[in-house]
């Protein structure tokens, strides 16, 4: 349900960077730990972009796998080893405790991303005159 608020933030940033030009593609990097339901994000994006310069723009989502590194022993692991399902949820109970030494203070190296990477915009106007 946070996808509506996230869509608004994405569109707001895209419009700012588009500087009045029409936006055709918006690329967003989404970490697996952000609990973003991709279908819901797309659905909300479509609603939020209506009647803006992003209307009709394609939303391209790049899913970034979760990666943790143990602050004590340096071991790296994915806390949610099975791939996220199409609705973007963690399917196995994640483990944020180090499988090697049992320490609980892991650093999140990947999976927290929620970033607008780039947008495609149309330059100039195609005006056909008879």
């Amino acid at each position, binding site marked *: *349900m*946070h996808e509506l*608020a*996230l869509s608004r*933030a*994405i569109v*707001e*940033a*895209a419009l700012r*960077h*588009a500087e009045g030009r029409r936006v*055709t593609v918006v690329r*967003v990097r989404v970490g697996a*730990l*952000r*609990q973003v339901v991709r279908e819901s994000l797309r659905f909300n994006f479509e609603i939020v972009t209506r009647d803006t310069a992003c209307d009709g723009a394609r939303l391209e989502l790049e899913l970034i796998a979760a990666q943790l590194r143990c602050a004590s022993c340096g071991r790296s692991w994915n806390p949610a080893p099975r791939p996220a399902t199409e609705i973007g949820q*963690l399917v196995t*109970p*994640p*483990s*944020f*405790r180090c499988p090697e030494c049992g*320490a*609980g*203070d*892991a650093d999140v190296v990947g999976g927290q991303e*929620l*970033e*607008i*990477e*780039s*947008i*495609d*915009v*149309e*330059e*100039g*106007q*195609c005006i056909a005159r008879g």
Partner: protein
Amino acid sequence: MHRTRVKVSEGVLDANETIARDNRDDFERHGVTVINLMSAPGAGKTSLLERALEDLGDVRVGVLEGDVQGTLDADRLASLHLPVTQINTDPGFGGECHLDANMVRSALPEVPLDEVDLLVIENVGNLVCPAEFSVGEDSRVMVCSVAEGEDKPLKYPLMFRTCSLVLVNKIDLLPHLDYDLDLFLRNLDAVHPDVERMLVSARTGEGTEAWRKWLLRAAG
């Protein structure tokens, strides 16, 4: 007409983070410690505040009360003779299911920051969205009641990972439920190992003394 790719490289929540930093600067300037209190609807945030805020000694407390609609919770807390400021997300903010930095910012002129040491921001009841939006708080506390089931940390890991204290409320109900407290704590540890947790009952008062002391320490 041609297409150009424009590099953005901007966090989706950067705009919120910027305002949250402004809030934090204001809080720091006034020497106010800020707690963001979150939970699902009905977990017992307001009741646990009533228990703890009744007597915080010399610590002056204020509450910023976030709700979609109405002043029911604010009215309850105002009866403790605390400065309570209501934010309704319904009229001005499209009925948002969470507080964000800007909503808190717009309410700050009504919060007597000079007259409080501790400000508790009671977020809108929701286990998803509030976890994403920093409001400029020093720490986040969440309430999860035993009536909600053992699986909640696994379903809402972002919320459980973002908190520095988890209050497990309504433990007076344990004899009447099939709830497996050990399983809940195992799930909690899988998602946020060793996070501080307290077993409490706002109804009977059991365990709430530790919560009161936690707030006192936070404000100190």
